[in-house]
């Protein structure tokens, strides 16, 4: 099976920032991503959990974006201003994808 180099960018970020993040991605032409729900976690700002919460203020999401290596920098630069000042973590992992024409 033909595989292609790619990067898997995983952003854990507050749910209230969803629109800002996806807009930033779209502005640099990244229209492929998947959003996973997050149950809870822990970080510099303490532990939290979604259970029983009504407000979106204290929930997070994980945005996963598979992207060609050569577009990674544009993506990260688009992300940076949104992440800045906000709670969240970003990791970039080398990966391989099928059907590369789409990324």
């Amino acid at each position, binding site marked *: 099976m033909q595989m292609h180099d790619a990067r898997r960018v995983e952003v854990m970020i*507050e749910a*209230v*920032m969803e*629109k*800002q993040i996806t807009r930033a991605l779209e502005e640099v032409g990244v229209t492929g991503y998947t959003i996973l729900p997050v149950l809870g976690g822990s970080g510099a*700002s*303490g*532990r939290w*959990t*979604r*259970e*029983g*919460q*009504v*407000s*979106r*203020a*204290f*929930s997070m999401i994980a945005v996963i974006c598979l992207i060609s290596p050569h577009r990674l920098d544009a993506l990260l630069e688009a992300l940076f201003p949104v992440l800045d*000042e*906000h*709670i969240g973590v970003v990791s970039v992992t080398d990966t391989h994808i099928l059907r590369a024409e789409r990324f």
Partner: protein
Amino acid sequence: MDQILSLAGQNLLSPVILFFVLGVAASLARSDLTFPEAIAKGMSLYLLFAIGFKGGASVAQHGADISLGLAVLAGVVLSFLLPFVAFALIRVLARGVSVLDAAAVAGHYGSISIVTFVAATSLLTAGGIVHEGYMVAVAAAMEAPAIVSALWLAMRGGAGGKMDSDLWREILLNGSIVLLLGAFAIGWITGERGMAEIAPFIVAPFKGVLCLFLLDMGIVAGRELRAARRVVTPGVVAFGILMPLVGAAFGLAVGLVLGLSAGGVAVMMTLSASASYIAVPAAMRVALPRANPALYLTLALGITFPFNLTLGIPLYMALAQTLTGG
């Protein structure tokens, strides 16, 4: 005084309050009793739907006049104004609190807590005291303006903050405002006929759902209190208890000027006294991300909400009745 104590005592022993206390206790004891997020949201949608519709149906029944518009306007003004009062008060009482954090807290106190509103109206109903149905529209109108004041306070204090069109949409088309006002409008339009159709869903079971919801709120409030011991200084606690009283005083003045009924005044006091813990925190996370959420959430949900629920509301009711002669 006697009356206040008896009202407060009666209130403290109502199932609604006791379930809140159960939730706090379970959470402090670290029980694993929790509600799925979807259920908590579902209950809050139900409550907004029900109180919006009931408010509208009541306006349809009693007719609306200029007083509705005036009350809504007064609510907007209060919501813009109260953050300045709250800002000043917290800066005096809790000196360690930064300008940024004070601005964020202030936004919460200018806005309202819809569950506190519901608790007040159900206590009024239980006591046979009527209030204007349009107070639900006032509640909706008071949700958002305070956010603008909070951002202004933060920007003026050089603490940053930004206000873009996204944030405006987030604030004005916030789901809870839309549902509350939408259901209010539909209740108004369909009136008695509409009410007859859906009353068995929104009237009779309402109190029971409210108990379950307050159990959940208690769990979340207890968790908050447990997590946020660091931020709870004496000055912060003092603010969390004084500010609702100050807010209620503003609400009282406005209610009397507007010539509301005793119940209406009590509701206006409750709205002014209450602090948001759903819409405003979300807006603050977007606009003032560096403000400390532990501070404003502990204050709104961990201190002021229980205070209003247990002692505040009976007090506001008693004052409103005494001063309106109602």
